[in-house]
């Protein structure tokens, strides 16, 4: 679980079954394990009202784990982007009583939460659990471009090429951490680049 540093830095919890009429899960890769761990303590029949949207990692693992829970609906996407229309459609048609559970990488949790917020769900009522990679979704504060799966500190902006310090300053609205140029005074100054978010 990520430590709290500055106030905007998201803090994640542990998924737990909430009272509700329908349950929507969005997860990637090892986020599936957060769902199956939660399922062990869920009331009987809990998944008969559940809809699971899952984006497996490169290894394609954990699909069978989720299918074994027998959710009412199960959708498997290649990328978050390909799953997003389905997520948005689900939220648009939903009624109060739908509960949302997000698990996996920070990028997945943040982007799915962004869609949920747009649909009118308060972020405090969304269950989250971080699992797997610490890779960050980063916005370059200079060109506003988003770079996915940032694992190093500093990191290079995929759009404008600036070398950025990846801050803990997080924007819920755009679901990304802020990256600020680390060598604005002298571009030839290249600090050591470390694997910070494996």
């Amino acid at each position, binding site marked *: 679980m990520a430590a709290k540093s500055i106030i905007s830095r998201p803090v994640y919890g542990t998924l737990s079954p*909430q*009272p*509700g*009429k*329908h349950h929507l899960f969005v997860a990637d890769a090892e986020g599936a394990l957060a769902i199956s761990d939660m399922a062990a303590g869920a009331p009987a029949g809990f998944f008969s009202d559940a809809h699971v949207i899952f984006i497996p990692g490169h290894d394609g693992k954990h699909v069978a784990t989720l299918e074994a829970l027998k959710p009412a609906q199960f959708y498997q996407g290649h990328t978050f982007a390909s799953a997003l229309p389905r997520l948005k459609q689900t*939220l*648009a048609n*939903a*009624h*109060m*009583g*739908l*509960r949302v559970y997000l698990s996996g990488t920070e990028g997945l949790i943040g982007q799915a939460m962004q869609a949920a917020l747009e*649909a*009118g*769900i*308060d972020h*405090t*009522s969304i269950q989250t659990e971080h699992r797997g990679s610490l890779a960050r979704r980063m916005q370059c504060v200079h060109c506003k471009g988003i770079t996915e799966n940032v694992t190093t500190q500093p990191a290079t902006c995929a759009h404008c090429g600036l070398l950025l310090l990846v801050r803990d300053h997080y924007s819920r609205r755009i679901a990304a951490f802020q990256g600020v140029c680390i060598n604005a005074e002298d571009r030839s100054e290249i600090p050591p680049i470390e694997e910070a978010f494996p």
Partner: protein
Amino acid sequence: MSTGTTKLDVVVSDVVPVNDLVTRFHFRRRDGELLPTFSGGAHVVVEMRDGGRTRLNPYSLMGSPLDTSEYTISVRRDDVGRGGSLFMHRNVRPGLEMVISYPVNLFSLDLRAKKHLMLAGGIGITPFMAQTAQLAAEGGNFELHYTCRTASLGTYADVLRERYDRRIRLYHDDREERIELDRLLSTQPLGTHLYVCGPAGMINWVRDRAAALGWPPETVHFEHFAAPQPGLPFDVTLAVSGKTIRVDEQQSLLEAIEAAGVDPPYLCRGGVCGQCETNVISHDGKFIHNDHWLSEEDHRSGCKIMPCVSRFEGKSLVLER
């Protein structure tokens, strides 16, 4: 006279009987200026100088927040209550100079909501008068379900129907009309916030069903002005101010503390806002907690009390004040 909130010097500009139980009061500032801005759901505390006794009762502002030339409240007469509403009905006439608090809002709209679902019972309609006016002015999406005993006691039901037509649904107890709550709650679009104001039983029913049907607590807003309950008289020692005082049968602990010249903070005087929370230094006896603020654990601990609505029965009670 109190640290509750800043005070406003007002004059009663009109008194209008609404039905058998309810009367409306209009206040303007004595200096002719505009009153402070407020938002739908706000209340003011009205000071009533009744002989040697000062009563302080909270009432929701029911006028449109867009008009601050006057404040309006509606008071339901309670013949068996502690006398505040009777004082308003019997003694308050146009021209009377009164003191009221600045508005305080403990029941505000969450303007991030996609839709506002409002449930009112009886005189619980008053905060919604202001909230619907506010939302209607900005094109907000709302729907109000209003239960009343009979059509003639449906305070402002006709006004609301006239203004908002089908966004208002009425239910009359004498015709055995009842809100189909589960169906209503289950068919609301995502992003709806729920607001309920009415008798305690109605609020509890709505909150319980909403929680069971999966409404997150952040989306459920309620307001209940619990009038202080009478009870056996008891004695209290106030440690900081070094006073020992008696709380009468019909007096709240907060009122007794104020009468003794101590100036405790307050906002709602109804056991919900937390402002008057007071530490208990020692006690020998049992608390009668009537508030909605302290946790059950706080209630059991015997270390805290909300003097606006809660009482005590026993040998001794020492409070920090």
